[in-house]
């Protein structure tokens, strides 16, 4: 993702979670990272999730 998109996703995850007292699911974490991923790197970032998390969330709602 790169430093800036990663940090933007990181901040949104924690700020939203803390302020709204949320507990995210794996799919929601995935979606938040993808929200900040540059369009032309979606496939590569999804590959990282498949490799190191074991979940393919592309088809998830």
């Amino acid at each position: 993702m790169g430093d800036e998109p990663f940090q933007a996703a990181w901040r949104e995850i924690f700020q939203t979670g803390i302020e709204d007292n949320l507990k995210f699911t794996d799919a929601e974490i995935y979606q938040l990272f993808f929200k900040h991923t540059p369009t032309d790197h979606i496939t590569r970032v999804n590959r990282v999730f498949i490799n190191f998390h074991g979940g393919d969330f592309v088809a998830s709602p």
Partner: protein
Amino acid sequence: MLTVLPGQAKSVPTDYQSLVDNRFYMEKITEPLPLSGSVDLYLVRFLEHQTESATKTHLRSAVLAIENYMDFPLPVKEIIMLFSTNIDAGGINYGSHFTLDISEDGSLPQLIKGGIVHEITHFYLVMDTPWFAEGTANFLATQVGFELYNQEVAPRSNRSSCPNDVINITEIAAAYPGYYPRTNCPPVLLPQLRRENH
């Protein structure tokens, strides 16, 4: 210290007894942070320790660096850090306080630098699964380590839980039957996510 007693009473009875008997050393710092306002920092030990001032300096720098990276206030107004010598893990965050084990580590500065940030990160509870909690804690410890000291710190869980000779979850599952990377090998996903595109 009354808030510390419940966690220590159950896990480390000797520490609990020392707290009850008022046999401990404690430093308190009130640190003004840009976003969080005043945050009280407590260092509690059961033995005198020569590196007290270095730990305190690091703790003050660490909370500022954490707040800056998060870009919003710390979720707690006080941080109680208790150095124990008899806990199973390298460090444990109990919600009311956290402990760090100094009984085994031969490189105290590394443990302090990595362990403190790791445990403070656990106060930011936004997901219950271990892979995310431990992964984010290790990630932020590494990030702050580079920011403050321009060196990599290696939290204990990062060194001991994750096999180093495999690079993805398929290989991990094949090489280590029964090993569940999402819970036991948490740190790899987040650094890989950030590196992608470099």
